[in-house]
């Protein structure tokens, strides 16, 4: 069995900014436990001598020239805003601090 506990699931909910009900915590704990038991087998073959691949097709030095383009109009920027004021996005009070 893996180490998935309801407390861990609650903590993951905080990190992922999803408010989870106690019912969801219980259900996810059970499901993730089964899933993690199955996917943990990757470590069987992932030995130290194997390099990690993060891109399927290796490329490097893909750059863009420093030329302005793609800028949106203010209407486009705000067209889906749930709430806006003074051409900016409005959000309710922020609890946490800047990083």
């Amino acid at each position: 069995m893996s180490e998935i506990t309801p407390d861990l699931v609650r903590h993951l909910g905080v990190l992922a900014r999803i408010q989870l009900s106690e019912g969801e915590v219980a259900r996810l704990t059970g499901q993730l436990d089964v899933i993690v038991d199955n996917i943990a087998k990757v470590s069987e073959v992932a030995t130290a001598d194997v390099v990690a691949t993060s891109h399927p097709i290796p490329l490097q030095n893909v750059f863009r020239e420093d030329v302005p383009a793609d800028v949106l109009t203010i209407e486009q920027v705000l067209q889906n805003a749930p709430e806006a004021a003074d051409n900016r996005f409005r959000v309710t009070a922020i609890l946490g601090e800047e990083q």
Partner: protein
Amino acid sequence: MGRDKLMDFDEALERFEPVLGFEVHVELNTRTKMFSAAPNPAHSANHDAAPNTLVAPVDMGLPGALPVVNEEAVRASISLGLALGCDIAPSSRFARKNYFYPDLGKNYQISQYDEPIAFEGSVEVELEDGTVVTVPIERAHMEEDAGKLTHVGGSTGRIQGAEYSLVDYNRAGVPLVEIVTKPIFGAEHRAPDIAKAYVQTIRDIVLALGISDARMERGNLRCDANVSLRPRGQDKLGTRTETKNVNSMRSVERAVRYEIQRQAAILAAGGTITQETRHWHEDTGTTSPGRPKSDADDYRYFPEPDLLPVAPADSLIEELRAALPEQPVVRRRRLKSDWGFADIEFRGVVNAGLLGEVEATVAAGATPAAARKWWMSEISRIANADGREPGELVTPAQVAELQRLVDEGTLTDKLARQVLEGVIAGEGDPAQVVASRGLAVVSDDTALIAAIDEALAAQPDVLDKIRDGKVQAAGAVIGAVMKAMRGQADAARVRELILERASQ
């Protein structure tokens, strides 16, 4: 705020050894952003942009948008790494730093994590007393800036107590290089000076490279200062605090001094230091606690799958190395000897942060003494009064032109100051201001002679007095003529003409 107990600075240094560390964020002045082609607000062309008008899809995290790296920002980062004496990584890559915050359009910041572009360097830093200190550099890495929040409601305009906040994504995606020092040991009582001189040096370097406008008041250069204390004789490092966003060189110095005094008082009273970020308050000259380190700081870094490794060719690195400007310390030594300034004069320019301005003004044709005089007196005075930076007001070329007009007799010193005001008011270059305000010295003798005649008619005894050898009597006439000419006459010429008349 401000209720912290502080220990006397000297006593604190007697009992504890301060260990410093700095994270300086430099906004690059490329034309476009780090990962999008939107115009960069840190480029001078875009300073005054209205909110949310410098935004491409990726800057606000629109669904489907993808980042692409700005080549110019990579070149600038390599140059900066080299100027910091760093090794350039043969291959470096971007990672995602995941955390939720409304100023972060994607809710992750693209940064470099375990593979920064530059690492292991050092910079020589010259303190105000001329001592040179070496600051070890851990790494310099590329990343993107976040947007800007405005907190509305409540009393302070700060985040605490605000009713709501407004988000502007113009700054989101501005190219940043974050320079991280290793722990700086042995700073001792010079710790605050080192802090200030270090930031000053970084500013000089990026200005010499031309890769950032480096205006601290605009946030082009931002310093986080880490301070910890350990009791004398202890090996283990003490717990550090990170004072964020200290945005002037003087504040960096004060913040470090404050943290040393504050932490010393706590430790001496048997207390412990909390590992936390702290905020600097310019008005009160104090720091206040911010966010404590916690396990919520799990940024879940992983390699950015939308971007590829940056693997600069040796030829590119050598090309950029060959183009590096000289080190600030070396440059200062050179300029000081070229200009022939006294120690105190030279240090005055350095400490005012006007070395570059004076240098550029000399390059534009002014004498070093004249260049220094303009920047250190009249321009600094006006800047101070307006709460702006001298470099914002006029260009070195304009200052050199102004001085040339004085040297060739078109302007008197007094007129030149009026012309400077016109230039600062945005009326154009000095020659334009002279023309539009009609400020040139009247060099037409006919006009002067007419004014002299008029003045002599009012004071008929003056010529006789002069002929009697009382030459100082000319002063009254000169004054009258100057007044009639509204100051736009060369007083020496007026005097000459009066004496000529007396000798006739």
